[in-house]
């Protein structure tokens, strides 16, 4: 969000949101708030309840208890919801014989937008040239873009994306990242779920981590990653032998990565920097890798592999 642009998004709130499918607890007592003007990552392993939570938010799945609201209202109580909330849920919800433009037109008709808006939305996602093609011939990435065009046609204040980068090529992912940042910059609320942490880390301002249907952590990226201070630091030096000797003397564990590279585990830059300076070791590069989002994610969802996850989403 820029200082000049007032927020125009709406807050999203989960209050004790719970969904049980029979004996399976897909989502359990989830309470969180997503603020406007930020890109919020909704992260968790497959089957952690992300999609179920988003579908409850969008009125597609009824909660067992609790509530999920947008701007204080349930989705189905929003007047003409497509003008307030855009959602990209899955890239398979298309009639294969329908042309791309017609697909977006069906949404436009439903929310009172014009064909001009349809063309603008297709232009925005880079599908103008394919507007007259049937969706059946589209790649997964093109379908994602088309789904996004449908979500954006109402110029909504809230954008909800479920695994949006699935099927997108690297250019598409980069474009989506910039686009989400642009929308957040306009003050809109962007909630994006993903299990692809490397992409999210570059895009999001805030992060919500879920696993086994439960909220594990929520906060800014810095506050979340700051919780784990000791990580891995990779250094590149022409004096690897001296460096190894110093590390051994200091009681630090390390791994040789290449003839001039060493990875030192469980150390902070504040510990390693003075140590290297004291011994006057020349460094070409020092990269702090250990406290990234992935480390936090793995530590919070540890042991929750596919076998342990309920079929939550």
């Amino acid at each position: 969000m820029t200082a000049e642009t007032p927020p125009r998004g709406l807050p999203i709130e989960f209050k004790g949101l719970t969904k049980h499918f029979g004996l399976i607890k897909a989502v359990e007592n989830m309470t969180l708030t997503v603020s406007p003007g930020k890109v919020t990552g909704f992260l968790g392993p497959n089957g952690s309840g992300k999609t179920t939570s988003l579908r409850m938010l969008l009125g597609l799945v009824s909660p067992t208890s609790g509530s999920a609201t947008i701007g204080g209202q349930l989705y189905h109580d929003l007047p003409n919801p497509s003008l307030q909330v855009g959602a990209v849920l899955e890239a398979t919800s298309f009639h294969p014989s329908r042309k791309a433009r017609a697909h977006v037109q069906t949404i436009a008709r439903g929310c009172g937008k014009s064909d001009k808006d349809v063309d603008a939305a297709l232009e925005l996602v880079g599908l103008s040239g394919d507007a007259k093609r049937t969706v059946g011939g589209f790649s997964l990435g093109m379908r994602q873009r088309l789904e996004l065009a449908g979500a954006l046609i109402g110029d909504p204040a809230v954008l909800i994306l479920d695994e949006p980068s699935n099927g997108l090529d690297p250019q598409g992912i980069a474009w989506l990242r910039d686009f989400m940042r642009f929308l957040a910059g306009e003050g809109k609320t962007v909630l994006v779920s993903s299990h692809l942490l490397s992409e999210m880390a570059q895009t999001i301002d805030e992060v919500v981590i879920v696993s086994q249907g439960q909220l594990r952590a929520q906060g800014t990226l810095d506050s979340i990653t700051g919780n784990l201070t000791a990580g891995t630091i990779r250094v590149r030096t022409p004096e690897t032998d001296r460096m190894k000797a110093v590390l051994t003397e200091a009681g630090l564990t390390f791994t040789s990565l290449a003839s001039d590279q060493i990875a030192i585990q469980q150390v902070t830059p504040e510990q390693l920097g003075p140590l290297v300076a004291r011994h006057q070791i020349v460094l070409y590069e020092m990269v702090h890798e250990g406290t990234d989002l992935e480390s936090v994610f793995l530590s919070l969802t540890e042991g929750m592999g596919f076998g342990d996850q309920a079929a939550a989403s």
Partner: protein
Amino acid sequence: MIRTIRSELLKLRTMPGMWVVLLLAFPLTGLFIVVAFLTAGSHAIPHSTFAAVQRLSDRRLLLGAGFQSVTLLAPLLGVLCVTTEYRHKTITGTLLLTPKRSQVLGAKIVATALWAVGMSILTFVAVAAIGLPWDASMGGAIGSVLDQVGAVVPELLLATVLLSLFGLGFGTLVKNQIAGVLVTIGGTLILEGLIVFLVNLIFHYDLNWMPNEATAAFAGEIARGAGFGGDGGGNASLNFHLLPWWGGGLAMLGWGVVPLTLGYFTTFRKDVT
């Protein structure tokens, strides 16, 4: 609601399957136009293969030649309207656009009914394009056929709409497109007739509230022309009695309303996962 209806109409307009079903009404009606002239030929003195329609029942049979086609095809319009949404998972987008599910169902009812009206109009176009010129070429009086418009057209229109809603209700219940289409065709062409026949034969009970029989009773003027019996007389060999026209209409309405209501409270209220 208007926006949702417009969206539904565009969806149907951009589904090739709907056009196939709609346009099939034209050649099928053409087939029953041939039947109308064959029937007229059998009534002519001396008998001939084809003859211009002279009797009241033959004139109505010609004008309502689309009746048999819509009996088969109109329910398919309804089935396709709703099952396509589940087959291609477009129901997710539909409910995101219009989260009030009763509104979605209402829009589908209106959109399907409008397509049904289009289908019945198409059958009249077939009669105008094929039947009337053919009748005139055999010396028939087109005016006397057109005199029956008031008796035939409203019944056929309404029957088509009610049949399409029956299909919509059935589609809402089954969700599966292939099952919906197969059961509709199989039920219309074979199963229902067989059940009605056997029950009448064995138990001497008229299942005259079944969809086809109710339709025949409702569209009495056309049905009489189409040889369904009528006048409460029914099939002489089976001593089958049709309902009065209003009873047939109510039964047809029931065949639409009951599955639609059940479908709303089951399929439409379910979670979309």
